């Protein structure tokens, strides 16, 4: 049973951020991640502030400049089923459809998906690890087959979100609200590297929430995809995955965004690969070289070197599938 909590469901954003400014509070969107964390004592708030009464934060709409505004409380199922997102922001639709199970997608929100806590079994278990304020990351010398091969410093989690890499590849921005107002930042700078701060996964401060996710107007000749490998066919987190956003100029790649999932503590930009692709035609050799460059700086732990080959394979496969006919 979940420990005792108080609960409030405010009906305006102003009230919500005010409630959340008080110590000992935590936001509840769909609750699919939060309830597990509460049950396991990963978070121990006194009061849960439900966002589900904030109807302004639900739904998908065109913005004035031809982009898209997705309210933070829009469910993953709504994102996965949306016609415009499938057509023009394919990576996001594919990521949302591949996250979790049908039931969880009917309940879990896009904002919650970006803010969910890591799935590391030490973090979720009864281990006082570094992320929980302890001395060491147990994954370093423990069981680490599902941990990171990039960006591990102080802590070796992987970021669990499928939507985050897709949104970073699509150059999304997030609007953040607090009691003083709102600000909009690129999603790429939302996540926090454990080298900088091991106790948080994102830059949100107490009293701050994501209100919406903004996608820029799609350019013509943009193609995107998200593909993930998991240990079985049914629902599971990514062992490794890649979100790709390619802008073409004719047959040539004009600009590439390659963002890996399941292999790093934050959605991981494969910058070398992005550069290797710019200005190139996606022939077999270019793709093979790009896929190889994506894993060149990998530093596997004792049990997860398989992720190197897996990642290389997924990047290869995804790039081949995105070649213009």
């Amino acid at each position, binding site marked *: *049973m*979940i*420990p*005792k*909590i*108080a*609960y*409030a*469901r*405010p*009906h305006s954003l102003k*009230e919500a951020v005010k409630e959340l400014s008080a110590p000992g509070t935590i936001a*509840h969107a769909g*609750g*699919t991640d939060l*309830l*597990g964390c*509460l*049950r396991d004592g990963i978070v121990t708030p006194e009061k*849960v502030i*439900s966002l*589900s*009464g904030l109807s302004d934060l639900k739904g998908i709409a065109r913005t004035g400049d031809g982009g898209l505004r997705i309210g933070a409380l829009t469910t993953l*199922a709504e994102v996965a089923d949306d016609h415009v997102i499938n057509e023009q922001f394919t990576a996001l639709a594919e990521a949302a459809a591949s996250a*979790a*199970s*049908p*039931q*969880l997608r*009917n*309940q879990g929100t896009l904002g919650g998906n970006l803010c969910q806590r890591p799935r590391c079994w030490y973090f979720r278990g009864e281990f006082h690890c570094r992320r929980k304020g302890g001395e060491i990351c147990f994954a370093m010398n423990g069981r680490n087959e599902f941990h990171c091969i990039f960006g591990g410093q102080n802590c070796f989690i992987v970021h669990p979100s499928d939507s985050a890499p897709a949104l970073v590849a699509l150059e999304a921005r997030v609007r953040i609200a607090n009691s003083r107002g709102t600000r909009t930042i690129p999603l790429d700078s939302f996540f926090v590297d454990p080298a900088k701060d091991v106790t948080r996964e994102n830059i949100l401060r107490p009293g701050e929430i994501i209100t919406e996710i903004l996608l820029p107007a799609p350019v013509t000749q943009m193609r995107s995809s998200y593909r993930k490998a998991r240990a079985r*066919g*049914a*629902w599971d987190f990514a062992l490794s995955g890649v979100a790709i956003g390619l802008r073409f100029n004719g047959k040539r790649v004009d600009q590439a965004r390659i963002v890996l999932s399941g292999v790093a503590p934050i959605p991981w930009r494969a910058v070398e690969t992005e550069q290797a692709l710019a200005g190139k035609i996606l022939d077999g050799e270019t793709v093979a070289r790009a896929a190889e460059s994506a894993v060149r700086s990998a530093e596997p732990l004792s049990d997860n070197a398989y992720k190197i080959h897996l990642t290389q394979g997924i990047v290869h496969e995804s790039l081949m599938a995105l070649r213009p006919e």
Partner: protein
Amino acid sequence: MEERRAEPHDGNTDGVSRRDFLRTIGVGTLEAAVLSAAPLPSEGAPAHTGDLVPLVLTVNGRRNALEVEPRWTLLYVLREKLGLTGAKPGCERGECGACTVLIDGKPRYSCLTLALEADGHEITTVEGLMQGEKLGQVQEAFVQEDAFQCGFCTPGQVISAEGLLRKTPHPGVAEIRHGMSGNLCRCGAYDHIVKAVQHASEIRK
């Protein structure tokens, strides 16, 4: 319980008579019943301490006035306060699907839903799929296709199938597997479950 089951599920929540209301309360919920018109969480008093708070839960077309703790899940309230034991506690962490119910017609895990979050929504449990004394069509299809062994996962499977067929009345095999992927079966009755969903899709009106 029998009377409640005998009610056809038509999703209609209007016109619940006082008699129906009291009968529902009678289903093991007397200790939690609130007969006064206390404000709902969404109407006025938004903040709650950890103590009991009033909630009106619409389940299988019936309104149930209850008092709940904010930490109680919908699964707990359905089973322990409303006596509706169709939804099962399996993993209680969103992994197995045994607790699946429909919320506004969509399958969701009741183990990861706070009861207070269900305020204002329509909940359907496997009990609500009965057609009077007879099994509903999806339930009937599961029986005919022998789509279970121990049966523990079955209420959740049936509800997921119902939700899938409401959204996609004629799913292909791949769509069925995808749509049913949030429900595990320890007995491995998967092939028969897929057949049952196909069968249900054919006989469903």
